[in-house]
């Protein structure tokens, strides 16, 4: 009986997402009375790996190979399955992000494991094994029973938060068997967005809709994001119009996010938009229309013109930050 977590690294570093995964794994392992093993692929320094111990990892298996510095679905799923077989893992856990969605289904087939994606809580029962997940794009939840003895889960971001739980984690090198067939896809170019808070990482997200009126009005919105250390986002028409870059589009057909605080500025709150943001812990809406549907999903609202409210909001938050030193 054992539990395996795959966590990716970003240029050799882990993120809050990784620590959240380990926190979750620790809770599930405690329910089962078992250990948390982690597999890390790519070059990560040992002191970075040991950080995973602070959140409850017992054992860290590292796989280093220069061909593995980019995600290759077939190679990665083969490695993770080899580790799972080696430690006889019953549950393999991933993040519900790009890499998790890419690899988890392949690992599930290799292990003949039932898979549940976008899990939002620890199992409510171990027998039958039952977990909660999001369905209908944030509009409902389902309890899913996994019938197979092996299980693959992907954890929805920001579901449980991060808790420290230090363990004296041990690092081991794992050497997988790989063949040329595993490398039939080749990454020829990587483009990274630098100097911006990433939407999928952000605790606070400031988002603008068509009510912003035109792309030149985004300055105060960016300023608000800057004082809050927030990421910027937008509704679909805004990115379709080319007012903002596509990677900022949130909603059912864009990114699904769950920050602690979401600002919806000049956004009507269409059901497809809410699908991407309604898991946010707190929502603030500013809209001229008191009947805009966004107010039904918001926690705090201002009926008003975003062009007047936004500069005011920036200056008041700056004052607050200044008073806090």
């Amino acid at each position: 009986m054992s539990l395996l977590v795959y966590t990716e690294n970003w240029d050799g570093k882990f993120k809050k997402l990784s620590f959240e995964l380990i926190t979750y794994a620790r809770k599930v392992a405690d329910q089962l009375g078992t250990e948390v093993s982690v597999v890390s692929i790519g070059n990560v320094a040992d002191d970075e790996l040991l950080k995973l111990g602070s959140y409850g990892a017992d054992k860290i298996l590292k796989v280093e190979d220069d061909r593995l510095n980019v995600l290759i679905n077939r190679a990665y799923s083969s490695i993770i399955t080899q580790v799972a077989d080696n430690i006889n893992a019953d549950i393999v856990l991933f993040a519900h992000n790009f890499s998790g969605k890419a690899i988890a289904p392949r690992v599930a087939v290799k292990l003949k494991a039932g898979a549940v994606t976008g899990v939002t809580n620890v199992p409510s029962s171990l027998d039958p094994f039952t977990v909660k997940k999001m369905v209908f794009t944030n509009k409902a939840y389902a309890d899913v029973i996994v019938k197979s003895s092996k299980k693959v889960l992907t954890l929805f971001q920001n579901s449980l938060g991060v808790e420290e739980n230090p363990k004296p984690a041990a690092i081991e090198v794992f050497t997988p068997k790989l063949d040329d067939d595993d490398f039939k896809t080749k990454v020829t170019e990587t483009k990274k967005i630098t100097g911006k808070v990433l939407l999928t990482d952000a605790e606070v997200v400031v988002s603008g809709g068509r009510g912003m009126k035109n792309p030149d009005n985004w300055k105060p919105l960016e300023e608000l994001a800057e004082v809050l250390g927030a990421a910027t986002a937008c509704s679909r028409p805004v990115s379709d119009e080319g007012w903002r870059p596509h990677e900022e589009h949130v909603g059912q057909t864009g990114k699904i996010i769950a920050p602690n605080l979401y600002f919806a500025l000049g956004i009507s709150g269409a059901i497809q938009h809410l699908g991407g943001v309604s898991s946010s812990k707190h929502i603030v809406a500013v809209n001229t229309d008191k009947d805009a549907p966004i107010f039904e999903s918001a926690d705090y609202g201002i009926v008003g013109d975003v062009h007047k409210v936004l500069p005011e909001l920036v200056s008041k938050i700056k004052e607050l930050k200044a008073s806090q030193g």
Partner: protein
Amino acid sequence: MKILVCISNVPDTTTKIRFTDNDTKFDAAGVQWIINPWDELALTRALELKEGSGGAIEKISVINVGSKDTEPTLRKALAIGADDAIRIDAEPQDAYFVASQLAEYLKANPFDIMLCGIDSSDYNGSLVGGMLSELLDLPSVSSVSKINMDGENIILNREIDGGSETLETTVPFVAIVQKGIALEPRIPSMRGIMMARKKPLEVKPAVETEALTEFAGFELPPPKAKCKMVDAENVNELVELLHNEAKVI
């Protein structure tokens, strides 16, 4: 070269979600069914590639694992421009069940490029495409936002956390597509709708496979507390609420 687009039949994106049978089943009463938005975009891109291929891509097929009720959705895909459709006659039970049905069919009827969406908008599995590629032991590329062909070469773009990558791969392969793959879904023309009636829609029996998961029950999120309204002339009050009450700034 042949391209297959896997089609998931889902409730319209504006559907009010309700459950029946003691919250154990999705209430399909009055629901409008559509092609899963990603699959519709995947089909659109497949057609664009075919049209630009100078005959190198000879056929676009669509496939669905579903009961007879999904046939209107497949007919719509034919009206948009797919050449033929296959329905595997089984009620989808879980992702492993669906992927196994698709894989059995594809072992006997291979395609060069297989396109799946990143998720179905109903159960948000994000599983079928990846499972299918593994069952067929083929390369897969996920979160694909662009597919281009340069002669024989296939060039893909995929989104990663904080950026994007360009990839090359060998055929056959499975691409799991998302936003960006096509700009707008293609809308069936009158002529397309007429022609769709005559295009082949083949029904295949399901193979014996098991489901590894099942839904035990559903629930709607708890109703949201009423929104606290702050006067537009008093923005400072909002800042104080966010700081002292919500403790988020």
